[in-house]
């Protein structure tokens, strides 16, 4: 259980949010060109990192906006919160 600092609403309990999984997975530009391996990579394969992970969250019970979070998955400590479309912070 932890607190997430929504970039639009401020600090709220994690239970107000829904996790959207790994961030920065780029949607294929030309889906018809994709091989089965590339589809598997896009749809199913995940880094599932133990440590600093960039992930998407949505404030389901609040502003309902999506944003990105940099969180250490080994202890659930959030290092940074940044908006959709922004690059992950370098430190």
């Amino acid at each position, binding site marked *: 259980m932890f607190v997430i600092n929504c970039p639009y609403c401020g600090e709220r309990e994690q239970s107000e949010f829904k996790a959207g999984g790994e961030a920065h997975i780029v949607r294929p530009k030309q889906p018809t060109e994709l091989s089965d391996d590339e589809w598997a990579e896009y*749809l199913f*394969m*995940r*880094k599932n990192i133990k440590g600093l992970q960039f*992930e998407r969250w949505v404030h389901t019970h609040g502003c309902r906006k999506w944003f990105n979070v940099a969180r250490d998955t080994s202890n659930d400590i959030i290092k940074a919160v940044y908006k959709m479309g922004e690059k992950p912070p370098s430190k």
Partner: protein
Amino acid sequence: MKKKYSIFSLIKNAFSYHENWGKAWKDPVPKKEYEAVIVGGGGHGLATAYYLAKKHNMRNIAVVEKGWIGGGNTGRNTTIIRSNYLWDASAGLYDHALKIWEGLSQELNYNVMFSQRGVMNLAHNLQDVRDLKRRTHANRLNGIDAVYLNTDEVKKFCPIINTSPDIRYPVLGGTLQRRAGTARHDAVAWGYARGADAMGVDIIQNCEVKGIKRNGDNIEGIETTKGFIKTKKIGVVAAGHSSVIADMAGLKLPLESKPLQALVSEPVKPVIDTVVMSNAVHAYVSQSDKGELVIGAGTDDYVSYSQKGSHDIVEGTLNAILELYPIFSRMRMLRQWGGIVDICPDASPIISKTSIKGLYFNCGWGTGGFKATPGSGDLFAHTIANDEPHKLNAAFNINRFISGDLVDEHGAAAVAH
């Protein structure tokens, strides 16, 4: 050869106040080289080693465990065993395990306290009723015992359930698998460890894997906190940490590791003599031989390796428990904990070869791996020894995520994930 456990050894040791029982397994220093190394000393890993030694005569093998054996998800689950899965592939896999469970205590000469007290799955809405009826028919076509119960029959089988029609999630019926039940989780790990050790398997605890050494597409060995171990075959059974080990070999897996919580109450006199699972409201309850209620919750929806989950998940589960069992309203909970479960997109496991020769993965058991322990070990041992899957685990290969031939047990497996 180890001394056999029996009534006579029990009496003999009583005279020395049970202080002179021999060690059930050795505490060896790792050798320089093994024929195969199993990464992960939980139930599945130890069972794999046991069957490698017993059925495939591979005795120069080791199990490396970063903590103590059975200290991960083996010691953290709610010990439910059943095989009432919808799809043919899953039914084959889980019923194979259930059949081994039925003779396991005798085979291991170790009481795993397997108790076929039945598992009942409840339906709370019309869709549940249809799904559970469909699953009952599918089970019976696969030779798995299953019956559908109406509300009165549910009440008769487990009288403490509140079957009043005016609760938030009324009980409209349920399924019952009588051969299903529970077992003592620690004993499973210890029994397999003792059995494997007796056949010459080295069980090395407090030995964490730090790296996998590859030469092209071949395995050369593993780097551990107790030094480098040379081997040509590695079987990874690391549950929640499977992705971490895969990353060491440069592989990516279709897994997400999430916290799954459980809790136990203070011990009370026998009050519930079966296992009742309710998928719709994520409340699973049984009673241990010590008298504690063993309660399982759902997973959190975010990736975490922290072995602790969110409070609201436990709260939701206990709300459901109290509505279904008003008799528990004044029970106090003693302990709560989390385990890290590795979940596949189709909620079915992976027991498979990989693109790297000699590297095998047994993972993705998600929220329900304990029940499969003996079958998983047996089939993974077969896969490692023959470099080919057994027909029962062929469908659970890693390439199904490329071919699209998924075993989609999401919601179909009697439990919502």
